[in-house]
């Protein structure tokens, strides 16, 4: 078959289509967004009627995908690592129910936090949910793992977790694709109780899942993605997980002098691991993210095997791996001739010129700083988080999707006034609605600004689940119509905006202000496509 230049994310998408996918379910999140976008734009996916519309959040995505698997078809769920926290309830329980149609869950981790608020390692989720995991090292392997992953999932009757990292998700390389498979027909489990996790059934399912573990280890030992590559120097044995393997090989273009165990499938392959540990004096673990393997084989007290890695300082405890840090870990050094001169300044990202969030923050901060020095602004995850920087310096928190509204409520409960929340439209429907209901039920004294740009902007302008429905949702949750205010954030409306903000801060109860103006990026894209 032909070779295509694909991002790691696109390799996942193409492989899933080729493997007979019937539906992808996802909420946008860097670095996972391009998987679903690729399927949305694929003519082949359209022709095959593959579901690809965005879900409202990762939990609804995971559950919908499980429903498709329940019905015998192959489903893909994609999210960034923190999305796993949102999807976790269903994710962990999907290991308990098992699957019918093949189910692949992609968690795209972001070591070094390029676009994230933490660098949690999704392999821990795979570990405690007791299902097999795949961790590719390059684009071709990504394709191959996904292509065969659905079949593997159906064979073992469990979902499979594919762990990506930013560098692979967003790196392009030539990928050879395979023959297109048929989609599954609808079918249901022979066991009518499989998906009913009442305690009695759940205990039975859990024993079954535990009993499968030995087979999962065996599958890892026989997996083509786990390779023992012998080397003459047994002073050191190297375990290289995922893209850690690439950085190692970059430093040994003619082959590594030490034995290397390349890991691409979990649970860890016991046989090869035992061989490496018995033959080598010391073990070095190269893994992108947190020291998952290192802690496992070193033992909690660190006295099981002599292991070097992120815990003993051989590699940095945080941040992604790179060819330079791995070089140092094997006693080499990449030297540079030039340095970055001191004249080079930081250039942090900023809100676009003409963005409605700018107008919203301009007036909000003017009012708060002038008349309410005790104010706090709880913000959320999205472009408007950039209100943290100059010239606005407007916000006091950004924690997780939806936390603006609920943290504002908690602070108000504690006595803070004024307690202001700033959340975007997509984040509001993702995880803000339930918090608003909490506020309404107690008539909490909070001013909630839903800064509506009618898109999921930070990830590149994907559809927002609540477009055209935000007022109806707020009213439906019980917000007083007199304190649901809509305004267009433009310079000419500054006076009106200021008046509304003042009035609603002064109102002792739940207020929702919706400054609404389309994202300048999506607007200009629309204009360009109309021109064409």
């Amino acid at each position, binding site marked *: 078959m032909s070779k295509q230049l694909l991002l790691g994310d696109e390799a996942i998408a193409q492989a899933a289509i080729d493997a007979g996918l019937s539906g992808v379910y996802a909420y946008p999140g860097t670095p996972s967004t391009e998987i679903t976008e690729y399927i949305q734009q694929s003519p082949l996916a359209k022709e095959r009627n593959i579901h690809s519309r965005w879900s409202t959040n990762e939990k609804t995505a995971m559950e919908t995908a499980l429903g498709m698997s329940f019905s015998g078809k192959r489903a893909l769920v994609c999210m960034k690592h923190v999305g796993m926290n949102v999807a976790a309830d269903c994710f962990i329980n999907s290991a308990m129910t098992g699957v019918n149609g093949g189910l692949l869950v992609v968690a795209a981790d972001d070591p070094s936090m390029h676009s994230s608020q933490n660098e949690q390692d999704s392999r821990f989720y795979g570990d405690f949910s007791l299902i097999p995991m795949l961790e590719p090292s390059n684009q071709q392997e990504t394709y191959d793992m996904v292509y065969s992953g659905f079949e593997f999932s159906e064979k073992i009757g469990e979902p499979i977790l594919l762990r990506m990292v930013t560098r692979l998700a967003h790196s392009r390389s030539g990928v050879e694709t395979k023959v297109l498979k048929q989609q599954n027909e609808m079918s249901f489990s022979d066991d009518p109780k499989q998906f009913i996790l009442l305690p009695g059934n759940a205990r039975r399912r859990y024993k079954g899942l535990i009993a499968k573990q030995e087979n999962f280890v065996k599958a890892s030992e026989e997996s083509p993605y786990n390779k023992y590559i012998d080397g003459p120097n047994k002073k050191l044995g190297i375990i290289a997980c995922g893209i850690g393997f690439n950085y190692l090989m970059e430093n040994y273009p003619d082959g590594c002098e030490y034995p290397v165990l390349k890991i691409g499938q979990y649970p860890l392959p016991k046989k090869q691991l035992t061989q490496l540990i018995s033959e080598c004096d010391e073990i070095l673990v190269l893994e992108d993210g947190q020291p998952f393997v290192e802690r496992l084989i070193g033992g909690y007290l660190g006295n099981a095997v002599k292991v070097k890695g992120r815990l003993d300082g051989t590699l940095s405890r945080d941040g992604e791996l790179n060819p330079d840090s791995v070089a140092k870990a094997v006693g080499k050094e990449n030297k540079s001739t030039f340095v970055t001169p001191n*004249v080079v300044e930081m250039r942090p990202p900023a809100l676009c010129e003409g963005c409605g969030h700018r107008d919203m923050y301009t007036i909000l901060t003017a009012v708060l700083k002038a008349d309410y020095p005790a104010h706090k602004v709880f913000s959320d995850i999205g472009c408007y988080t950039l209100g943290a920087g100059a010239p606005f310096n407007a916000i006091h928190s950004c924690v997780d999707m939806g936390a603006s509204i609920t943290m504002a409520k908690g602070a108000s409960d504690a006595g803070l006034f004024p307690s202001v929340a700033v959340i975007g439209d997509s984040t509001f429907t993702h995880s803000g609605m339930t918090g608003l209901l909490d506020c309404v039920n107690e008539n909490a004294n909070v001013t909630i600004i839903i800064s509506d740009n009618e898109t999921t902007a930070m990830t590149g302008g994907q559809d927002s689940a609540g477009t055209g429905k935000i007022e109806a949702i707020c009213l439906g949750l019980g917000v007083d119509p007199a304190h649901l205010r809509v305004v267009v954030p433009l310079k000419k409306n500054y006076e009106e905006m200021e008046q509304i903000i003042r009035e609603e801060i002064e109102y002792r109860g739940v207020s929702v202000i919706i400054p609404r103006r389309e994202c300048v990026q999506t607007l200009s894209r629309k204009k360009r496509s109309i021109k064409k």
Partner: protein
Amino acid sequence: MKKDIILSGVGGQGILSIATVIGEAALKEGLYMKQAEVHGMSQRGGDVQSNLRISDKPIASDLIPTGKCDLIISLEPMESLRYLPYLSNDGWLVTNEVPFINIPNYPAEADIMNEINKLPHKIILDVDKVAKELGSPRVSNIVLLGATIPFLGIDYSKIQESIRDIFQRKGEAIVEMNLKALAAGKEIAEKMM
């Protein structure tokens, strides 16, 4: 054959359009390539870079090691300096000289030029001016690409072919304009070497 290239600029300037043309050409030559891109938060006016690696042998790392980069291509002068630790002893820097000022503490232009001029191998040009003279400000990125031709290690004809393929659907006039921009950049670089 092995070329490690860093493309740099400011989010929104379109460094990836340059990478796409080189990548297409590399693929046509039957070479291996890996290209790490930046998506997400930094695209909003922050500094962006892309690591582009081309080789006739399989490539291990998606990222270029320190001191191993053969060529830095930058759409912005201050950004051209940010990745200097990656540049090899005899590596080249090809950069646009027009600053993109979206931060309050942007350094004096003379200080930036002074640092660029310290480098042993560099090409500095005003791609916006060249593009305007050609009659289309939009082709400035291709002017910059043209200025890298002497250092790319890929046939000029292959790059031309790649431009034809990529811009074909936009019409012959656009293809010709981009080919002219490519030639103009190449000519400037050859004169400066």
